[in-house]
């Protein structure tokens, strides 16, 4: 498959798993030592490392997913990720990818709102079987202010 199509397929699957499930498969898009961060532009601009969500391994993503589905009390909601404008740069066996994202949120009984918009800054690699996976994924939200709760990863 052509590289662009492969990368696009990964992002389509990323959105599909977060929006339609099963959420438990979301970590499988990362290599085992992969990491995920949801951060705000404000912290990035100030050089502050704090993340809204920080997963430093696939195992910690699995913990996060388990908590979302079983431990944390949340008002039922749906989210929808829209990803566009992928750019890909190949660098020493890695792919530096960035893209715009928008995440809409619909709380049960409510209307749909734009929850977050921002930029992905990601590093992709091929795993041992040759499949393209996330090594590092950073979702940078433009707004510092979160509308109540961030439940599903950006």
């Amino acid at each position, binding site marked *: 498959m052509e590289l662009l199509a492969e990368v696009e397929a990964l992002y389509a699957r990323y959105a599909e798993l977060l929006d339609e499930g099963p959420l438990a498969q979301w970590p499988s898009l990362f290599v085992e030592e992969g990491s995920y961060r*949801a951060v*705000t532009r*404000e*912290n990035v601009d*100030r050089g*502050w*490392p*704090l*993340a*809204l*969500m*920080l*997963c*430093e*391994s696939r*195992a*910690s993503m*699995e*913990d*996060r997913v388990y*908590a979302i589905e*079983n*431990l*944390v*009390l*949340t*008002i039922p909601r749906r989210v929808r990720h829209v990803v566009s404008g992928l750019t890909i740069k190949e660098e020493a066996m890695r792919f530096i990818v960035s893209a715009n994202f928008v995440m809409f949120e619909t709380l049960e009984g409510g209307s749909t709102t734009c929850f977050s918009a921002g930029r992905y800054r990601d590093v992709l690699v091929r795993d041992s079987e040759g499949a393209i996976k996330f090594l590092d994924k950073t979702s940078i939200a433009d707004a*510092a*202010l*979160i*509308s*109540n*709760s*961030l*439940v599903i990863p950006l």
Partner: protein
Amino acid sequence: MTELARNWTTNGTHRVPYWLYTDPEIYVQEQRKIFEGKSWNFVGLEAEIPKEGDFKRSNVGETSVIVARDRDGAIHVLRNQCAHRGLQVCRQEYGSARALQCPYHQWTYRLNGDLSGVPFMKGVDGHGGMPDDFDRRDHGLKKLAVARRNGAIFASFAPDVEPLEDFLGEKMLKLFDRVFNGKPLRILGVSRQRIPANWKLMFENIKDPYHASVLHVFLVTFGLFRVDNPSRTEMDATGRHSALVSRRGGDRTASVATQETASFREKLELRDPRLLDIVKEFPDPATVVMQTIWPNLIVQQQANTLATRQIVPAGPEAFDLNWTFFGYEDDDESMRARRLRHANLMGPAGLVSLDDSEVMDLAQRGIHCDNTGNAVVEMGGHGTEDHDHIVTETAIRAFYSYYRNVMGL
């Protein structure tokens, strides 16, 4: 002060009327009597504005203020409102500047709030200009009283407010100094969330260890906060400030503390246990201290995550919660990484605090159109005294006891 049309008819504070969380008139009076009254409002940490000329925006109640570090190192807190026509002078969340300038007519202020420049003040070619009796000294940015303690900055609209140390009282000062112990702080980052609930529900939440031991499955399951952990709930002499102090139990097994907690999971293990890889860092045995300081601050120490949470009311039925996570300058790399990892428990996506923001939303929805009902706040009795346990709502009752005095309710 105007009399409120509302009347809190019951004695004591074991009943709290629901209109307290929705009434616009109550909200306006709170701004005046509480946030602009004789109180010290938390506005930020010195480490956020480390260099001369650095400033950040903050709030006292709903009112926007500028917190600026002057060339002599002094910190000023100024109302963010041009003395000319009322515009917000400062449009940036943070920055660095030699002076503050209103964009409209370019009135310019020093970092201490003094008005230093007014374009065409003397007129042009003998035309216009300000009247002869116009004195720049009368038209600075409104200056608030400022108090600093070990890196934390407080401000007050009341020039005659008591000293910060007296305001906190001996017991609360000791707990405050536990985290703000004089070691230089290092900011890790900020999180902001708008919670669709009345601001007092946030204080109630942190003053309510009862909920923490049932709602927060994460805390209970991993022993971070359980009713059978050695704990205490204490207040200052006025009841306005409080602290929940507790110690993580080694025991993760089921007990009387968990049998009434439907959500307790005895067998649950983390796949990446680093999330709870806690290192003892304070001399006392407490592993969690949640302190609420009237009228707008929560100081959080849970595991190795330290944070301030500033409450900014945004109308009767919403508030912003501004979290500032920090560590100390002398933290090594592993401690810094640990604090960032433990921050997963807290904030808008916190594995613990998510429960709270969602519950506060539901509370406000439930209360929203109820003008006659009351909350029942009777766990641990009707009193407002300290307790050496956490099966109690005493700190909420103490808070409202002080609140009623200040509000004249």
